[in-house]
């Protein structure tokens, strides 16, 4: 390595193994931050759930359990396709990866559509974030989650475009894996939101 061709610009090109493990660690750290960002809402939920059990019980019935369940299935399925997409690119199968990413994106969009119908039904019944503490929590938790879905979709869109262009191979696919981690977090948070809001209120 130590030949005369060493140039100043070389510093930014890390050893690929280091870059790979750095990126992954970086994303895990970011997920930790995300968990604590939602943490404030989870803490608020815990306190008000304990303080006003009747309110939560009466009002959670207003939420559409079926739509929530459908969305849970959609997200879990998208997590599956995402994970399979990562495996596919690690084996160098670019086409399979592109298809799997596309399915994941479609699932994410589907989730958004269902959520849109849910929100508009709520507004139709004059239920807004300031209706009660419970609905404040509902709108803020699902709203913040929805924002993460959108960010996730944007990341997936970029990954999809780059996959089609053939940027990722069995040797270099760090962004796919790291982006996948982010998408799984979106699923992970929903796994908690669904029972907390729709099921046990």
């Amino acid at each position, binding site marked *: 390595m130590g030949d005369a061709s060493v140039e100043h610009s070389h510093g930014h090109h890390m050893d690929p193994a280091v870059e790979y493990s750095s990126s992954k660690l970086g994303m895990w750290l970011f997920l930790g931050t995300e*968990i604590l960002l939602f943490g404030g809402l989870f803490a608020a939920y815990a306190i008000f759930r304990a303080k006003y059990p009747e309110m939560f019980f009466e009002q959670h019935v207003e939420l559409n359990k079926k739509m929530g369940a459908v969305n849970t299935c959609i997200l879990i399925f998208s997590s599956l396709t995402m994970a399979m997409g990562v495996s596919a690119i690690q084996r160098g199968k670019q086409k399979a990866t592109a298809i799997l990413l596309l399915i994941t994106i479609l699932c994410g969009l589907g989730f958004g559509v269902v959520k849109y119908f849910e929100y508009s039904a709520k507004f139709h019944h004059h239920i807004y974030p300031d209706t009660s503490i419970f609905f404040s929590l509902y709108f803020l938790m699902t709203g913040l989650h929805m924002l993460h879905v959108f960010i996730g979709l944007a990341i997936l869109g970029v990954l999809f475009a780059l996959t089609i262009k053939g940027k990722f191979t069995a040797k270099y696919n760090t962004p796919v894996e790291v982006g996948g981690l982010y998408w799984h977090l979106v699923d992970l948070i929903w796994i908690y939101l669904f029972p907390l809001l729709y099921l046990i209120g």
Partner: protein
Amino acid sequence: MSTQSHTGQNHITGNKTYIIVWAVLMVMTAVTVYVSYINFGILNIVIALVVASIKASIVALYFMHLKFEDSITWVFALFPLSLLALLIGMTITDTFTRTIVP
């Protein structure tokens, strides 16, 4: 030139495993929805949260490959959770042990 393969971290999980994991997740979702229609009182919350936690762990371990990660990743995956528990735990301790002034 070394590639990722030397680290051993780049574990490729087979699709079979993923589909089993997915099936388990779907079954648990069904269970938790089903249980929500039966009134167990306080147990409903416990069941829902336990099921959600198992699901979340499975997603983290398999889909997110935490199972194959090094210890430092584990530390940074679990430490935020303990802080979250601290935030919730201590805020609740405060809120529900306050002196009620008549």
